[in-house]
């Protein structure tokens, strides 16, 4: 039994100590049996405190360690490493979660939170008193990674993994790679186009033999866990054979009588049922949109490459880790939001960028030449809780007033949109002469080098007006003209009105509408509904699902540079799970008490891994555990009629001592 235990209680800055009286916790546990020293610390995870712990353990020959701080999902590994550096077996360390399950959960009840923290720390002390040294179990880990999503983040991650000599399966739901970036024209700061960037990445991918690219492919089932995932991938056919004549294919596209809204251009144009989004798109074979195809046969008459006999396939892929890079959707304004869907000349920023790209000499929308453009910022971002001051519609004589309701659930700033719209306005002015740009902002957030764009925009003569969230701009009709008015706070809330040929709603990023693949893996989401990392700063690409990492805008709004940075980080993390070909697992296994056991077989029936078999001990037949197969689930424990099975680190003594400690003051 451990009798020289060190206990460290963390303030976590104020995350814990703002709600839990950590000094009171320290006083309450200092005299517990076995506690040799008890300390509070501002940040238990800081280098200085870790060094102090190592020093304390060595100097005082501590045989047990308790750290009461954030969730063990975040820092269990950190403090186990501290124990190891101090030459203390890491299984003599026990973690008490007094942040996620105390200070944050009970920030409404400080006394209650402190009382709970005391009992949780006592419970951890009770467990560590009974802890003993263990060696980890080693399992094989498949050296392969699945990257889901072939946008810029996913493609860059796949290249990075391939260059680390790791086989990669890159899975893309669409039939073309590149994601959102392929929809963008000139990019800041490189001045290359989105298509050029995607082409460069695609070339890099096809030149690497250890990357398998699956397009039109979707993960429909998953089994296994870290080191040994099996993904079932469903591929949908393109209905075009790979060997095809480009000239005939274009004729086939021209002959197709079906026209549907073109999602690539955010529905401002139409496309055929046989289509490719742009000529140099990769892979360079068109696709037949089978949902909209009428099977009229016109394309088949012209092009022999059309093949309706192709069928979808189910493929099983085995990998050790999964990297999610599923991207984002642009926010779609609701009907009437700043005139969207209500006035014909109100569009979103993604639509505007496509409009600038596809127009040549003159900027036109729906046949009208555009000169005056009003950009309304923060649409679908930085939303506020509903209130009378921020919602509703003004009453005017003509009745043509668009809603300026900015209430909603998207409280976050989408970060990229200020830069993106200013860049789009500059590029539009460069391409089409005589444009007048009016920016209706809620403050400009062109952070870092992007400030250069804001400066350039001002030099170009763009007009910037600003309002607070309680008084957003209003879109309305006046004598048949679309007007935007604002009470501009830069001029003492003077009312300024602008006649706009085109109103551009600067929409932010939202999570993918169809995020079923995330639900499949049960990846937690944050308050913004994007995938949630374990810790923004300390474990920024890991999820609580072992072996699954996240990258790019599926995690939250990011620009291309930030997406690629997170992709490289996630690739490195995923590689760390598979690089050695084996993983160290917890040495948590079932242990049989040979004196109590007299083989009945119930435990073997309960074990889902066939890890239990009958063995002979002397003249007695008892259950034997195969340590290399046992996964430590504990399913055999409750079925034993004589209670002859315990789980290491979860024995009756340990669990019941914890229960006793938690219940200490209840009776």
């Amino acid at each position: 039994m451990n009798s020289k235990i060190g206990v460290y209680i963390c303030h976590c800055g104020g995350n814990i100590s703002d709600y839990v009286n950590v000094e009171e916790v320290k006083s309450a546990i200092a005299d517990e049996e076995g506690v040799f020293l008890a300390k509070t610390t501002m940040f238990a995870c800081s280098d200085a405190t870790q060094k102090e712990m190592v020093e304390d353990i060595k100097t005082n020959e501590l045989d047990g360690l308790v750290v009461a701080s954030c969730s063990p999902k975040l820092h269990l590994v950190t403090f186990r490493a501290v124990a190891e550096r101090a030459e203390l077996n890491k299984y003599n360390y026990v973690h008490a979660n007094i942040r996620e399950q105390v200070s944050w959960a009970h920030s409404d009840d400080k006394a209650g939170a402190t009382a709970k923290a005391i009992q949780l720390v006592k419970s951890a002390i009770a467990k560590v008193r009974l802890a003993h040294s263990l060696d980890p179990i080693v399992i094989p880990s498949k050296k392969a990674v699945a990257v889901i999503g072939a946008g810029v983040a996913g493609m860059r991650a796949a290249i990075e993994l391939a260059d680390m000599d790791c086989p990669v399966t890159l899975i893309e739901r669409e039939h073309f790679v590149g994601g959102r970036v392929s929809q963008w024209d000139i990019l800041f700061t490189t001045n290359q186009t989105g298509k050029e960037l995607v082409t460069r990445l695609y070339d890099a991918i096809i030149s690497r033999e250890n990357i398998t690219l699956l397009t039109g492919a979707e993960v429909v089932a998953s089994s296994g866990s870290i080191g040994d995932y099996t993904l079932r991938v469903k591929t949908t056919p393109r209905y075009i054979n790979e060997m095809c004549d480009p000239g005939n294919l274009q004729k086939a596209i021209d002959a197709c009588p079906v026209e549907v809204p073109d999602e690539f251009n955010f529905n401002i144009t139409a496309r055929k049922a046989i289509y490719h989004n742009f000529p140099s798109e990769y892979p360079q074979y068109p696709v037949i949109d089978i949902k909209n195809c009428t099977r009229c046969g016109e394309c088949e008459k012209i092009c022999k490459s059309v093949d309706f006999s192709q069928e979808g396939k189910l493929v099983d892929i085995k990998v050790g880790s999964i990297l999610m890079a599923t991207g984002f959707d642009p926010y779609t304004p609701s009907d009437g939001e700043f005139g969207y869907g209500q006035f014909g000349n109100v569009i979103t920023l993604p639509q505007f960028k496509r409009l600038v790209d596809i127009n040549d000499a003159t900027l036109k929308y729906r046949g009208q030449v555009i000169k005056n453009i009003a950009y309304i910022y923060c649409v679908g971002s930085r939303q506020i809780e509903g209130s009378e001051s921020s919602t509703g519609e003004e009453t005017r004589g003509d009745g043509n007033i668009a809603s300026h309701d900015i209430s909603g659930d998207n409280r976050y700033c989408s970060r990229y949109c200020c830069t993106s719209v200013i860049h789009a306005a500059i590029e539009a002015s460069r391409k089409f002469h005589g444009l007048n740009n009016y920016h209706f902002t809620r403050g400009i957030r062109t952070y870092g080098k992007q400030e250069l764009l804001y400066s350039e925009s001002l030099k170009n003569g763009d007009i910037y007006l600003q309002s607070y969230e309680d008084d957003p701009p209003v879109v309305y009709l006046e004598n048949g003209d679309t007007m935007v008015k604002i009470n501009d706070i830069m001029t003492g809330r003077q009312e300024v009105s602008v006649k706009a040929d085109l109103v551009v709603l600067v929409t932010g990023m939202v999570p993918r509408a169809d995020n079923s693949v995330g639900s499949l893996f049960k990846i937690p989401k944050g308050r913004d509904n994007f995938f949630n990392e374990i810790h923004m700063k300390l474990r920024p690409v890991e999820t609580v699902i072992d072996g699954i990492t996240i990258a790019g805008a599926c995690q939250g709004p990011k620009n291309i540079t930030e997406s690629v940075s997170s992709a490289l980080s996630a690739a490195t993390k995923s590689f760390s799970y598979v690089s050695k070909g084996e993983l160290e697992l917890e040495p948590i296994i079932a242990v049989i008490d040979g004196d109590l056991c007299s083989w009945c077989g119930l435990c073997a029936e309960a074990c889902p891994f066939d890890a239990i078999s009958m063995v002979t001990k002397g003249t007695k037949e008892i259950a034997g555990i195969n340590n290399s197969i046992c996964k430590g689930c504990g399913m055999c424990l409750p079925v034993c009629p004589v209670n002859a099975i315990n789980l290491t680190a979860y024995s009756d003594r340990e669990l019941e001592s914890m229960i006793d400690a938690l219940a200490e003051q209840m009776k």
Partner: protein
Amino acid sequence: MSLPEKRNARILVFSTEKISDPAIDMAGLLKLHYPPTVYTIAVPCSSGIKPRWIIRAYEKGFDGVFIAADGSDCTYGETCTEKTGQIVSRTHQIMKEKKIDPARLRMAAICSVCSEAFVKQIKSFNQYLLQSLSTSS
């Protein structure tokens, strides 16, 4: 004048390290409040909980025990739900023999993102236990 102490039931939660405990963590992250008299012990899998641990909790003064089960998400196998259900049934039997209200033991599958479901379940359980305890006292 001091405010009267808020009364809550004392509940022991058995969570699972990979599935339901992350959901309980996320409830804190999302500032979804529940009574501070709810204490959690995490185990690898809900189908490995021994009835004697549950009975121990009642004997030591807990008003209720809540099993935040893996459900169909269990990484150890599809039989988890069924086996956890069997543990609850056996424990209910023991509770009856010991004259403990079986309704003081509840189980629900809590997936790794089911934070709101967890808080809802716990609040409902807390209400039941408070009513039950006030009736019996």
